[in-house]
């Protein structure tokens, strides 16, 4: 659990394939204010590396990644 992270918005991208999780994440992060946190849930196995590349390139920060049974949960802080 990530009780220590305050989540401002949740994005359910489960069942979506590349590039939709990234495109939806970009849109959701754009709608946030600076320093707010987006929680994104995906099932795309490629999204773990994709999300890291996206965050690095756009200057946003992934606070934490949780891996479940076929699911990934990202906590992304809007820092850009």
């Amino acid at each position: 659990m990530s009780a220590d992270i305050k989540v401002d918005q949740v994005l359910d991208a489960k069942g979506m394939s590349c590039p939709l999780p990234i495109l939806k994440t970009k849109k959701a992060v754009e709608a946030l204010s600076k320093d707010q946190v987006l929680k994104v849930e995906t099932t795309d196995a490629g999204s773990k590396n994709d999300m890291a590349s996206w965050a690095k390139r756009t200057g946003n920060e992934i606070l934490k990644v949780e891996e479940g049974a076929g699911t990934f949960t990202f906590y992304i802080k809007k820092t850009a």
Partner: protein
Amino acid sequence: MANKKMTIIASKGSLDGAYPPLILATTAAAMDLDVTIFFTFFGLEIIKKENADKLKISPLGNPAMPMPVPIPALVAALPSMEAIATAMMKSKFNKHGVATIGQLLELAKESGVKMIACQMTMDVMGYKQSDFIDGVEFGGAAMWLDVAVDSQVNLFI
């Protein structure tokens, strides 16, 4: 700091040929790149009005395409095979949560991807500017090169 830039030349009009340019363009835009796609030759089919979701895939000349049973080339040439292969691929894409070509095109437009249709190919094939979706610009090799020279990523697909 100015955004980095990417250009793509989209030259294929098959279903499988349309995915890579649109996936890369939308993702690049989401990664803060300025993106330009130059549609030429059969790539023009992608941006003709109401055509994006009518693109087809053919098992002909495509030995890597997974089929439920092995299909000899002569059978693959039969009239209905293209429609069957297209329906099969679309259903697989749908099952795996892959966006349709039409959806990706819409997302590309929304995210400011610049689209140029090759006027020369249009003239050769008898297409009019009004045959294309809104927002498309028209030009030639020089228009693409002008952007490509200042881009970090240039792809021919």
